[in-house]
């Protein structure tokens, strides 16, 4: 399996005992009209003692779903998850989890929150106080034992999250984007502290599995990185990362690895369903090619900056420049590519001729260019315009489109798709949406921009 993945660097084989094993895990959700919606497809993964593994993917790649399958919080549709060789059927007894939003009980003090897992095991009070205080000490929360979570900053709250997870001495620590709710400096600080604890002897857990959408975070922390493709989530590449710790973000090896992963993540693969340049857009249905969730403003901003930087740039550089993470940047890049304003190859993005024209034009002309691109190349926008044109009063209830989208998307995603399309359609003055009647209506010729 490993060697067949395109991005594999076969320099390292994990040697520790297998703690967690996921075998051929698939997960289907159900769309509103009862169709199965694949979220994960055939994922196999082993977590060994002594390693940090990162699951990296864009939003919608199912990485959090995979983590929850491994944690035993949700059931995979097919496939198994085993902890030390025993298949689980409920919360995984060998792991503890750190949550993106901390998930602390606001009515319990730091110490009581930390003791939660020990208390649930029925440990006597004296013993669990001792252990909790020791862990609170180790994680740098000394002096905050009696504070309530709402009195703490985000970084301190997440420390409580770590203390609560580590104090039960789990075989493996699962982390669901643990730093993404923190500001950049706090996140960096906490990440480094965690890594230095990991390097120490007393660290109470044997392996770490982290979900992230931050490429640099993955490269900084992980021994192995699995890159997931989007809808459905599949392993696109496995990258082994053996840089010596602590890792220097500015070293050429580090940057090369980041570049390589950017390349993999922006690369279009047929099964990812995003090959807009090859599939004739007129033939693709809106459920085959989803709209990337990018606002018109962000799209214009990206094209503008790209033009100022000479029409071509490196994606990691651009991301760092904008202080964007992959989740923020890639949808905008995808949108630019879908609409034909930019082309992406190997983590490089280049403005196309239309893109250049759009940047240089005044507002009315650029709207016209955007409208032309959207109704030609964005399948959902095109479908909406066509449907509205065929009705007598050029008006349709939004439910009509939500029902159509419900065949290929979950309820939330269908709503999000329509919202993006409405935003684009409004900007392009192709159609409008009235919130009162929940109807979409074609923008009449009298409203159209003059030639």
């Amino acid at each position, binding site marked *: 399996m490993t060697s067949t993945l395109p991005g594999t660097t076969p320099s390292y084989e994990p040697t520790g005992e297998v703690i967690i094993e996921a075998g051929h895990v698939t997960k289907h959700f159900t769309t509103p009209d009862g169709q199965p919606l694949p979220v994960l497809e055939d994922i196999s993964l082993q977590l060994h003692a002594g390693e940090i593994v990162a699951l990296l993917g864009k939003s919608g790649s199912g990485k959090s779903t995979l983590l929850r399958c491994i944690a035993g919080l949700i059931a995979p549709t097919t496939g198994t998850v085993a902890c030390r060789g025993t298949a689980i059927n409920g919360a995984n*007894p060998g792991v503890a989890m750190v949550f993106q939003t901390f998930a602390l009980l606001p009515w319990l003090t730091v110490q009581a929150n930390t003791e939660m897992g020990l208390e649930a095991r029925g440990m006597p009070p004296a013993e669990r106080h001792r252990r909790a205080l020791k862990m609170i000490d180790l994680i740098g929360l000394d002096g905050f034992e009696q504070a309530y979570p709402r009195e703490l900053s985000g970084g301190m709250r997440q420390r409580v999250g770590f203390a609560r997870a580590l104090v039960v001495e789990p075989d493996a620590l699962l982390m669901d984007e643990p730093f993404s709710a923190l500001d950049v400096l706090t996140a960096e600080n906490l990440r480094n502290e965690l890594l230095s604890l990991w390097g120490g002897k007393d660290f109470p857990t044997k392996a770490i599995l982290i979900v992230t959408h931050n490429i640099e975070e993955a490269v900084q922390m992980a021994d192995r990185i699995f890159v997931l493709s989007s809808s459905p989530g599949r392993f696109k590449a496995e990258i082994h990362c053996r840089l010596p710790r602590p890792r220097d973000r500015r070293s050429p090896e580090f940057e090369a690895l980041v570049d390589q992963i950017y390349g993999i993540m922006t690369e279009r693969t047929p099964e990812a369903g995003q090959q807009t340049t090859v599939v004739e857009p007129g033939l693709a249905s809106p459920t085959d090619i989803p709209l990337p969730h990018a606002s018109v403003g962000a799209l214009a901003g990206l094209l503008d900056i790209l033009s100022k930087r000479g029409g071509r740039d490196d994606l990691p550089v651009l991301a760092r420049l904008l202080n964007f993470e992959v989740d923020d940047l890639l949808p905008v890049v995808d949108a630019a590519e879908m609409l034909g304003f930019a082309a992406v190859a190997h983590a490089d993005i280049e403005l196309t001729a239309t893109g250049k024209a759009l940047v240089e034009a005044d507002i009315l002309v650029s709207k016209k260019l955007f409208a032309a691109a959207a109704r030609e190349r964005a399948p959902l926008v095109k479908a909406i315009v066509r449907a509205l044109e065929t009705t007598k009063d050029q008006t349709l209830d939004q439910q009509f489109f939500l029902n159509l989208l419900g065949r290929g998307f979950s309820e939330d995603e269908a709503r999000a798709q329509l919202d993006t399309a409405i935003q684009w359609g409004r900007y392009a003055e192709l159609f409008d949406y009235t919130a009162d009647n929940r109807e979409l209506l074609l923008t009449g010729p009298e409203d159209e921009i003059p030639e």
Partner: protein
Amino acid sequence: MAGARSFPTRGVLNRPRFSPVDVIVFVVIVLLLFGVLRLAHAMNASTATARVTVISTRPSELPYYAARSLLRMFIAFFLSIAFTFVYATAAARSRRARLVLIPLLDILQSVPVLGFLAITITFFIALFPGSVLGLECASIFAIFTSQAWNMTFSMYHSLITEPTELDEAARMFRLTKWERFWRLDVPGSMIGLVWNGMMSFGGGWFFLAASEAISVGNTKYTLPGIGSYVQAAVDKGDLAEVGAAIAVMVIMVVGVNVLFWRPLVAYAEKFRVETSEAAEQPKSYVLNFLRQSRVPGYISRPLRPVGRDLDRATRPFGLAESPLRTFGYKRRSGDVAFTVVTGAVILWGIYRAAVYFDHTAGFSPFIRCLGLGFLTFARVAVVVVASTLIWVPVGAKIGMSPRLSRYAQPVVQVLASFPAILLFPFAIVIFLALGISLNFGGILLMALGAQWYILFNVIAGASAIPTDLRELMDQFRVPWRQKWRQLILPGIFPYYVTGGITAAGGAWNASIVAEIATYGTHHLTASGLGAYIAQATVKGDFPGVLAGIVVMSFYVVVVNRLLWRPLYHLAETKYSL
């Protein structure tokens, strides 16, 4: 490090061992316990004295009667909490139970509590023959039914909207069912439960006053209490004594608010899930006082091992988890069995009811009730419309002035809690003097209690309108019509809808005591469904009572579905600030 930590901090050493605060708290607790024990003994008095209990109307007896009434209120309240815990948890955690429990709760909420009294009294008296306990139970049950449904809905709603990540954390850290309930479910529902409990408790006074003295089938049942005191005073035609009872009632409502609810509301702030602080922190002097005292600490310390033992004892009930993999056929056959059994029970119930009516009064009472129900419905509509026209402008004015609303809000809350039934004698005296028919006077009686819900909610809504929006309107010199249309009415709409539903519900319930009235030797009757139920109760005509209740519930449900639900939906989707 550890050594330093075990030293008491300086504050502890400086504290006197027992401060005056502690003495006061301690004495109050002892007195409370003593009082409850004394009253509890009286609750089980022999019925030989009870059925003909002569309520003394000497004002010096009032404190005793008030204490008896208060105890009933609190017993009913704690029963409501226990019911809420069980029912809401079952509905939220079991897919199949939810299918039955939630619609059932919806119907129960629409049933007029007072109509039931005749049936429950008969039941409880049969349950405790020879003791006044049966009457006590019937009264407590009436109060309970006025409180429990609301609180249950509140907790159910909190449970199903529990944050996913807290649910996941609880499962991940392997909390047992019992631990999860007390660590996560109860604290998470606390704020909603306390606010709803306070409102329901306020509503409960009305049913307390109405349920202490009642005649069923020509037998007069009386319980010592403030409601029966007023009844006795009215029978004597002594308005001064009614006035004294009203004064005691006001003291009791205010006292319970200050000593019980304010501290609880302020305490519940601890359980706010949003990590940001609330804009305005509720404060309570009583709570601050208690927090200064060490008596609560002394009481809770010996209880802690009990809590641990309970944690341990409930361990066999298992983790708060259900297996991830279920077998499709097992689940489906369970569903089928459940549906068949539930369906059979419902059909059997309908069949039994039909047989019952067929053997007794036939189905003609239903036709009659439908017609009478329309008259009562018209009265309820007048109450709601008139209260709206009067109180929406007043409430908006008060709410938009922070100074006014600070004083008005507690007063209105007391007005809303005050059992209007105690004021009926005064109104009836006026009706008699002016020769007003109860057909119209009844509207006023129903409005006496119901109108305040609208005022209370409109004030709350108006004070929630952001100040900057109001300043903006003033700055643009927006004429008052436009200001009302574009800012004030949309702003208070969601609150008004809540107030309107509550007011309408209150008016329906009040119709049972407002459409028929006795003062001294005068009897007034209006034609309406409330009067029909009340008369059927006095006659001991159970089929009539049942038919009346069914039809009244039907009216309430239909109006809720056709009017309030759509308004509520509109308020939630369009006019939420």
